[in-house]
């Protein structure tokens, strides 16, 4: 290969990366103050890390704490960097790599759930089929008229993606997904 056509960049990329990227779920406990989400997202974009899913909401109103759940894919070294870099952000209280923690606890992976709202429009057999499949996936109908359904479905990412793919030929109109909420099994907190 012509050396000039190799990827360029800073000195950090000279050593060929041999480690494999892994998908990890991080839980980040932060002060619920203005700009805190921008700090976290800015860190990821500024340092070139991936975000595959991001969920954020206030979890402890009295203590003004929010919990951010991030799914990211990186090599083990970079994952360690991401964790350290997140811990440097002043309003960040704790960062837990749930994927690592669940392995330490002897579980395969952390519990992860996502909620999706899915609008399907159609008539005739397609409509019947959509309803039948929704029932099989335990999706709830939360809105409907004679031309459409809106389903609410909760579950693992794979289940939601499968549900979406089978709804596609049946008149899929719109999808809204929350991103992943995650927690480890067992009695201990994060």
């Amino acid at each position, binding site marked *: 290969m012509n*050396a*000039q056509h*190799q990827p*360029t*960049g*800073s*000195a*950090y990329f*000279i*050593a*060929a990366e041999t480690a494999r990227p892994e998908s990890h779920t991080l839980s980040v406990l*932060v*002060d619920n103050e*203005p*700009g805190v989400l*921008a*700090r976290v997202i*800015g860190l990821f974009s*500024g340092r070139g890390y991936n975000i595959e899913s991001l969920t954020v909401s206030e979890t402890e109103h009295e203590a003004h704490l929010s919990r951010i759940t991030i799914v990211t894919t990186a090599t083990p*070294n970079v994952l*360690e*960097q991401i964790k*350290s*870099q997140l*811990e*440097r952000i*002043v*309003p*960040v*209280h704790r960062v837990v790599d749930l994927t690592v923690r669940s392995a330490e606890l002897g579980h395969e992976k952390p519990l992860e759930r996502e909620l999706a709202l899915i609008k399907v429009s159609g008539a005739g057999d397609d409509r019947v089929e959509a309803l039948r499949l929704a029932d099989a996936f335990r999706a709830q109908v939360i809105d409907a008229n004679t031309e459409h359904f809106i389903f609410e479905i909760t579950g693992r990412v794979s289940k939601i993606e499968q549900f979406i793919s089978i709804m596609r030929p049946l008149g899929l109109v719109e999808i809204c997904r929350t991103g992943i909420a995650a927690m480890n099994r067992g009695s201990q907190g994060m």
Partner: protein
Amino acid sequence: MAGKQMEMTGAEIVLQALKDNGVEHIFGYPGGAVLPIYDELHQQDAIEHILVRHEQGAGHMAEGYARSTGKPGVVLVTSGPGATNVVTALQDALMDSIPLVCITGQVPTSLIGSDAFQECDTVGITRPCTKHNWLVKDVNELSRVIHEAFRIATTGRPGPVVVDIPKDVQFATGTYMPPSPVIEQKSYQPKLSGDLEKIRAAIDLMASAKCPVIYSGGGVINSGREASQLLRELVELTGFPITSTLMGLGAYPASGKNWLGMLGMHGTYEANMAMHDCDVMICIGARFDDRITGRLNAFSPNSKRIHIDIDPSSINKNVHTDIGILGDVGHVLEDMVRLWRASKKTDRSQLADWWTQIAKWKARNSLAYPENKDVIMPQYAIQRLYELTKDRDTFITTEVGQHQMWAAQFYGFEEPNRWMTSGGLGTMGYGFPAAIGVQVAHRDSLVIDIAGDASIQMCIQEMSCAVQYELPVKIFILNNQYMGMVRQWQQLLHGNRLSHSYTESMPDFVVLAEAYGGVGIRCDKPGDLDEAITRMIDTPRPVIFDCRVAALANCFPMIPSGKAHNEMLLPDEATDEAVANAIDAKGKALV
């Protein structure tokens, strides 16, 4: 006198909070959105305000002030362009871990988001170039935020912070709370003491070393004077050789017998070879920057590495560490010295072969340069400057480029906090305002900015500031009419095509100095140099010294980009051909 809890306006709160945090000097520039604070400044004399000529200058002055005193530097600027002009200095301080507190005015809260005159999203713009920042919308939060700002800027890994205060908050009345001895903040708790088990393991590894090297950095300086003292004790106890990064010069004295000189891209042969061939590396408060490591997959291939750093993200970032000790350098060194004293007897004979090898590398004389009787060699100029100023109370700052590297190579630093240079960001224009900041803190000391003819023109307007406050800063320009380091890289990488690295029109620096009300001195003969430098030192006013040096001298030794520590380009081997072929196609893409 510490303030009490009482009602006052936002602008009064700012001044009271600054006083209660021990601030004596601030660097700033007024504008619409900070007028209430300037009005308060006018009615007191506890804090001296230094009026700059450009906000970038204010930032670098505060950096120089902070680095020479160990106290935080304070900046006060207006909204919009005031804030954006200070961004370079903030990023510079972030990369070099310098504590700055920058207060910016903001348009009134009712106008935020309306594209008001001189409005910008200051917290948005400065978020990635500060350690933390705040927009204070409630006057009752103001004193707490400012106290917190000082705590965050100065503790842990120090850095710049921004407090953005809308104009209506400066006018509003609220409650001032004095700094609380109890830290209310829960999330930010930097760890100072290192894990004793790890320190013990590090001591054991060090005791077993046959070819050890200590590689120290700016973290030692930031940790305080005791840390430098402890580093010297550790070197004395262990008998290990020591090298340092650009940022760490002065922590161990350049005259010390274990000193190898600076390491890295323009470091000495002995320092870089020792890094490459060592079996145990002890990295103390440095961060394995790309200027230090050279090609990563050839970096010190046979060593076990110990890394002491207060920032967990620095450990294992670029280079794998065997023992990472998280903590303040001073605290960890104290434990190390104590444990070493208690348990280890240094067997100097174990290191004899290593020192013999180092002596061979030293004999290579990697800083040699050709003597010249007719033209001043830039290295010679720094050597003479050093000889004529070393016995004085001297502080040195630099701009960025060849002159900076020559200053690092040829000026010997004996003490910490005496050397101020832009390491991480490499900011041309840093040195002169930084020197002004140093001089503000040390009125009777000799403060010299070693500059290049290109860099100095980036913040030259601060001559006006130096003259106004009677700050007798000396600017020592190594004038070769080129952006020397740019030209050197063009020779290395681009077939000697010198695209825009020659300054065809140069100001007459002597006349320029006089125009500002300072003193200009020119020297272009080696024989006249000592007399001219002495005249500069003896002039109790700001001086611009135009030192005309050999135009085409280059800075060696050098690790060309993409090369390893043991592939240095040495001065006696750096022929035109060797320079042209030093970097291969892959290395050319690197910075």
